[in-house]
């Protein structure tokens, strides 16, 4: 199979290339043009970029098929231009056994859509007591280990888990949130929670847990990726830690780059997210830190929730937002706000996460995997229930007009989505 993508604006964040040209894909890899293509995509007027890499997308299988299925969410991924995604282990049962991981990978592969990289549970049932068989899980395809949104309250177990992971060089992806301080909270502990009478999660629930985590990284040398940082104070700590040479990486949820506690309005349950949307100052710090490299990449934190679970009072509503199909428009919006070039903007959802995942995709050069996206950065579309392929229609941007529409997605040299 030879594919020619012709006449597009080729943007490769890894090399900084941004020029009109053609991209040729042969046998699943980007190659120098040879012979006649089996298929040609006309990319005139479109941007051709490496397929997006999303380090946090919940596919809801196994266990939560009523919220979403692998079929629906893999369609959503490629409709959003996402060609590789890592899925957190908070399924039911959690991804804590090789058999489950194996089945998920095989089911995903059979659908021939995006590449799926499972993140294994760090502890059995995510319960924070017993380590999982990380070596076995790695063999079955886990790329890292995580607690998803379940905080590991016992610092002794956390210490041992990081020691054990460090022994074998397994990456550990963790959110920083103190379980006790976050207990019962549903919104950022600030002005809006006070006004609306919502139980708060203070920003220091993040910084206290982060301080613990940083000390444990110093002590164990574990390769830790900090997930969904949410506060200005947390960003400042990470900046210092990176400056001190700690081997850390970090991501931020795409919604947190644009929204703050103010967007809760009159109890909009679509804005019930984990971690909570914090103050405007926090939002600005996150947007700036992603631009200056303190934060390495943006993730969709895709969490399909069925409508009934959002049609509840704010504090009872299930947290999370659908995100796979909003990743591109929200990244573009952020890049405009920060006055970045398109290559700089796209780096946060291509080459940046590729480095963390340790994969060869996320760039356009001969030999790299043939994972590409063709999009129109200016095309406006409305984020309606009907427009979203994901089974989760839960987004704070529902009904709003966004710019940036994916026209075609290529995985392993095959066109898997066209619009």
């Amino acid at each position: 199979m030879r594919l020619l993508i012709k006449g597009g604006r080729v943007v490769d964040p890894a090399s900084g290339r941004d020029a009109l040209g053609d991209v040729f894909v042969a046998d699943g890899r980007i190659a120098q043009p040879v012979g006649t293509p089996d298929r040609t995509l006309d990319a005139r007027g479109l941007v051709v970029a490496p397929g997006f890499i999303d380090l946090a997308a919940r596919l809801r299988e196994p266990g939560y098929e009523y919220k979403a299925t692998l079929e629906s969410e893999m369609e959503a991924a490629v409709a959003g231009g996402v060609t590789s995604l890592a899925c957190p282990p908070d399924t039911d049962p959690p991804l804590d056994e090789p058999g489950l991981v194996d089945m998920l990978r095989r089911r995903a592969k059979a659908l021939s859509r995006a590449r799926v990289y499972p993140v294994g549970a760090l502890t059995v049932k995510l319960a924070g007591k017993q380590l999982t068989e990380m070596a076995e899980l790695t063999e079955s395809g886990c790329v890292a280990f995580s607690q998803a949104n379940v905080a590991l309250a016992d610092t002794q177990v956390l210490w041992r888990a990081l020691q054990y992971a460090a022994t074998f060089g397994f990456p550990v992806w963790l959110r920083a949130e103190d379980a006790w301080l976050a207990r019962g909270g549903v919104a950022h502990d600030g002005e809006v929670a006070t006004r609306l009478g919502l139980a708060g999660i203070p920003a220091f629930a993040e910084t206290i847990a982060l301080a613990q985590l940083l000390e444990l990284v110093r002590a164990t040398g574990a390769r830790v990726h900090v997930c969904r940082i949410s506060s200005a104070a947390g960003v400042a700590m990470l900046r210092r830690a990176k400056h001190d040479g700690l081997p850390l990486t970090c991501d931020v949820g795409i919604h947190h780059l644009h929204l703050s506690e103010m967007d809760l309005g009159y109890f909009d349950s679509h804005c019930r997210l984990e971690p909570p949307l914090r103050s405007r100052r926090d939002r600005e710090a996150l947007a700036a830190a992603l631009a200056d490299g303190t934060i390495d990449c943006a993730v969709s934190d895709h969490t399909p929730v069925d409508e009934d679970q959002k049609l509840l009072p704010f504090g009872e509503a299930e947290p999370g937002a659908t995100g796979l199909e909003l990743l591109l428009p929200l990244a573009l919006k952020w890049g405009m706000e920060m006055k970045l070039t398109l290559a700089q903007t796209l780096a946060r959802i291509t080459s940046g996460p590729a480095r963390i995942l340790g994969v060869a995709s996320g760039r356009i050069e001969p030999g790299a995997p043939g994972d590409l996206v063709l999009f129109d950065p200016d095309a406006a579309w409305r984020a309606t229930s009907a427009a979203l392929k994901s089974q989760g229609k839960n987004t704070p941007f529902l009904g709003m007009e966004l710019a940036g529409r994916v026209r075609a997605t290529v995985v392993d040299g095959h066109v898997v989505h066209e619009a």
Partner: protein
Amino acid sequence: MPRNPQLNGNGELQHLLSIEGLPREILVKILDAAESFVGVTERDIKKVPLLRGKSVFNLFFEGSTRTRTTFEIAAKRLSADVINLNVAASSTAKGESLLDTVANLSAMQADIFVVRHGSSGAPFLVARHVKPHEHVINAGDGRHAHPTQGLLDLYTIRHYKKEFGGLVVAIVGDVLHSRVARSLIHGLTTLGVPEVRVIGPQTLIPAGASALGVRVFHSMREGLKDADVVVMLRLQNERMSGALLPSAQEFNKHYGLSLEKLALARPDAIVMHPGPMNRGVEIDSSVADGPHSVILPQVTFGISVRMAVMSMVAGGG
């Protein structure tokens, strides 16, 4: 910020969900209407036909006797039919969702839903899903708001103090968990009270309380100084000893209202409490039953205020 969901296209009161965001004119209009109903409640025949033929559904997802009863009396004095539903014990126990419960009752031709719910914001959710001719009155949601209580507190203050300008109002106790405090604070600041104080230990004052337009005091003695109005909040039993407070006794010593502490306020200060009181915890009996106390008149005014609110949302004026 989306449009205020309580007002209709003409800026009139469609629902009463929160005092926050209501313009001064509407608050004054409610208080004035309540005043006119005080006369009705003092007559031999305590009924006016303003809501004749209308149905008021008291929908209490959280237990309450006092508030439910005052709504019931208010509705009956307006000649409405009242249906009391103790939902906490029925539908929700069977797993029915809040909106399903409301949809079912709506099918029985309701005009007003009086909603109390343990979760902040629940009445907003209900208001977003009712039919255009149906009205929602918040009878207390989580820690968020209790607007009719706030209005009756405002009514009581206006009754005894005549004007809001120049007043010092001190709200004392568990502000963190208090929907009464939140509603009253918004009402007082909207009506131009120059100094609203909240008094309590750090554990019971919410984060960023000053953003509500109040001065925060941790010393009761400093906070009560020269106050015209002292509002004591109820301290829930389950919060009296634990991580928030060591004991009811210690709370009483520092933040309970005694005659001796009350002497720091102005000589003509009034003392209010939303009830039910914990005597000997947040308020001593000598104060609760003393000459400064207006706690029982508050209850009486509460009926007129609720009549005013119901007639304004559903009575076409």
